[in-house]
């Protein structure tokens, strides 16, 4: 986890950073400076380790020496125990960075003979503090005193004085206490240490255990109140803050290819948004992993880093399987761009998964994270927890601008949309793969159920796995529903033949028209010829007629000439 700078306000309580991963974030800076803090919890929950890491980080990172006063483990035991976590106590002790003091009380050796106090313990602790100039003190587990010293009244009074004294000394102290039945600690130490109380817990649910941390009380400071899962691994303690306590992460407008061209086309031709969360859900064997692998390969080709969590297959098996559809992942693994992390979901509890995810993501710093599949977490009625887990993962990845692709297996009985409804609100782009059973075949269909912030295609496409990857085909919507597979091929053939036939028809129609046009034109020609002959005949008749009229007139004229009549009258009558 990156160490984040915390803004401190003027009236804020001064704090001592613990250096423990994540813890300083949830307490907004660490433990109250110069005050004692109570760490309580059951056996084996990590109290001692918390204390040790507080001192070691203080000595190595913040140059604050510390004193560890152990009431249980001897110095040798302690040194050996924490060596496995990479802390070299011997070295720190040698360099006067840390002082270890084992307080051994043997009940059988002790005889109480009257009034006493624990001044010797104060002197002892004070001497250790002064000889190092210590700023940090851990008392682990001071309650052991109750077993060694019978007089509880004195002890309680002295403990109260001790905590007061620690405050006066100005050291930041951690006091650990075993968890009691009804109280936080067996001896009610919380009465004395009232500034800050942190509870550690180690719970087993359904055979998987999870460590959790809770800040019960932090006087004068804000703090996260949730239970935070934490890890103890080879690098020590790490607490997982529920990151992005708001929804204020930066969003990117950059688009990245899904690795499948046709799918990109369905998403405005550009693919997913960077930093978005993609869910691919569908029934068994439908090709969810193939889509994930495409995405991984495409990212690696762009030179991005991909972290692939596989919860069902081993990396080798997955790579082999993907090879069969032409996706070569192995070279990217060798180049170090692709990393597989195969974990059985049942190996850890949910919180632990979150913790592990955090750890690997912080380590590998990927651009893309793939979780394949997420629903193996879901066993029984833990839906709420799973949702919280995923929400935390999603938030965490979003804050880090990491694009996430989850696959989710849905059972074919229930409606796919509803089965994942628990997490749908977290998802930006949701691709749904579904079986289409028709004509004795099972085919794959795919559509974009939702995709925030883009005009995605609403089309159902047929999803085909070929030896060169995933292909998306257009599907036919026929009278009997969506046609896929061989039905689609038949339909295609049918349509092809129809087209051919129509072509033929058009041709013949064209020919017929041509022929008709020929007919028509020849008819016109004969008609024209007929008409021409008729016309010429008519003209001839007309000419003859006029000739006759002329002749008649001439005859009349001649007659009139012969009778000596007025020529003018006759002419007008005839015209």
């Amino acid at each position, binding site marked *: 986890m990156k160490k984040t700078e915390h803004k401190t306000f003027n009236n804020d309580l001064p704090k001592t950073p613990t250096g423990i991963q994540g813890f300083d974030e949830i307490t907004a800076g660490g433990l109250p400076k110069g005050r004692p803090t109570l760490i309580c919890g059951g056996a084996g929950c990590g109290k001692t380790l918390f204390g040790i890491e507080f001192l070691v980080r203080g000595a190595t990172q913040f140059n604050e020496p510390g004193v560890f006063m152990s009431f249980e483990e001897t110095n040798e035991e302690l040194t050996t125990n924490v060596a496995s976590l990479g802390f070299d106590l011997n070295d720190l002790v040698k360099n006067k960075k840390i002082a270890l003091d084992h307080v051994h009380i043997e009940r059988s050796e002790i005889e*109480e003979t009257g009034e006493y106090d624990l001044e*010797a313990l104060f002197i*002892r602790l004070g001497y250790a503090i002064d000889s190092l100039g210590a700023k940090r003190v851990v008392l682990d587990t001071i309650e052991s005193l109750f077993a060694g010293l019978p007089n509880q009244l004195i002890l309680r009074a002295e403990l109260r004085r001790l905590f007061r004294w620690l405050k006066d000394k100005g050291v930041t102290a951690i006091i650990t206490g075993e968890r009691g039945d009804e109280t936080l600690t067996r001896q009610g130490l919380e009465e004395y240490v009232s500034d800050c109380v942190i509870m550690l817990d180690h719970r087993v649910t359904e055979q998987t255990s999870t460590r959790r941390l809770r800040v019960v009380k932090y006087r004068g400071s804000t703090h996260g109140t949730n239970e935070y899962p934490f890890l103890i691994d080879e690098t020590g303690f790490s607490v997982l803050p529920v990151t992005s306590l708001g929804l204020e992460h930066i969003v990117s407008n950059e688009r990245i290819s899904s690795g499948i061209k046709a799918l990109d086309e369905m998403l405005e031709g550009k693919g997913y948004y960077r930093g978005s969360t993609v869910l691919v859900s569908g029934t068994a064997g439908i090709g969810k992993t193939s889509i994930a692998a495409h995405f991984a390969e495409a990212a690696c080709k762009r030179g991005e880093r991909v972290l692939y969590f596989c919860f069902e297959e081993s990396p080798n098996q997955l790579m082999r399987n993907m090879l069969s559809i032409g996706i070569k992942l192995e070279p990217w693994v060798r180049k170090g761009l692709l990393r597989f992390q195969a974990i059985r979901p049942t190996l850890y509890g949910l919180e632990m998964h979150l913790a592990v995810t955090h750890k690997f993501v912080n380590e590998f710093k990927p651009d893309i994270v793939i979780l394949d599949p997420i629903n193996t977490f879901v066993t029984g009625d833990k839906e709420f927890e799973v949702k919280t887990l995923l929400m935390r993962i999603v938030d965490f990845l979003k804050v880090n601008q990491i694009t996430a692709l989850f696959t989710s297996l849905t059972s074919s009985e229930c409606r796919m949309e509803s089965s994942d409804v628990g997490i749908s609100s977290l998802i930006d782009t949701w691709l749904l793969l579904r079986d289409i059973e028709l004509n004795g075949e099972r085919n794959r269909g795919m559509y974009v159920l939702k995709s925030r912030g883009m005009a995605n295609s609403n089309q159902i496409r047929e999803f085909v796995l070929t030896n060169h990857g995933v292909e998306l085909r257009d599907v036919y919507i026929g009278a009997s529903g969506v046609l896929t597979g061989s039905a689609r091929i038949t339909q295609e053939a049918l349509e092809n033949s129809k087209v051919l036939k129509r072509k033929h028809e058009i041709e013949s129609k064209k020919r017929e028209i041509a022929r008709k046009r020929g007919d028509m034109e020849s008819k016109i020609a004969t008609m024209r010829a007929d008409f021409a002959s008729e016309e010429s005949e008519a003209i001839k008749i007309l000419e003859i007629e006029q000739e006759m009229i002329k002749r008649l007139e001439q005859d009349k004229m001649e007659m009139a000439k012969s009778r000596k009549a007025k020529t003018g009258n006759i002419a007008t009558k005839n015209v």
Partner: protein
Amino acid sequence: MKEKKTKVKSSLDDLDMTVSNQGKDKYILRLYITGSTIRSALALTNLKKICKEYLEGRYELEVIDLYQHPSLAKGEQIIAAPTLIKKLPLPFRRIIGDMSDKEKVLLGLDLKEVKEKIDFQ
């Protein structure tokens, strides 16, 4: 307040006497106190009285002021003050408190027989 380390050593003059005296070993005692507090002073007085009464001539008592020698507290696993450590004879014992409960001091010093004697009186 801070008192010098005081050493009270009884003379070891007669070894035969110690052996004859109920066959008891020599006592090596160490009293850790914190300065001259009332409790410390009381413990010292009480202890001296008891030693004189029961261990006359066969004990060695060293009084250490922890304020003067703070580093010694760790080595001897001292937490309470005052603490009397019975180094010898075995078993090793820590007697804490101001030694006002005489019976318990005697019990702690394994002087039980003496305790019975007291009961008679």
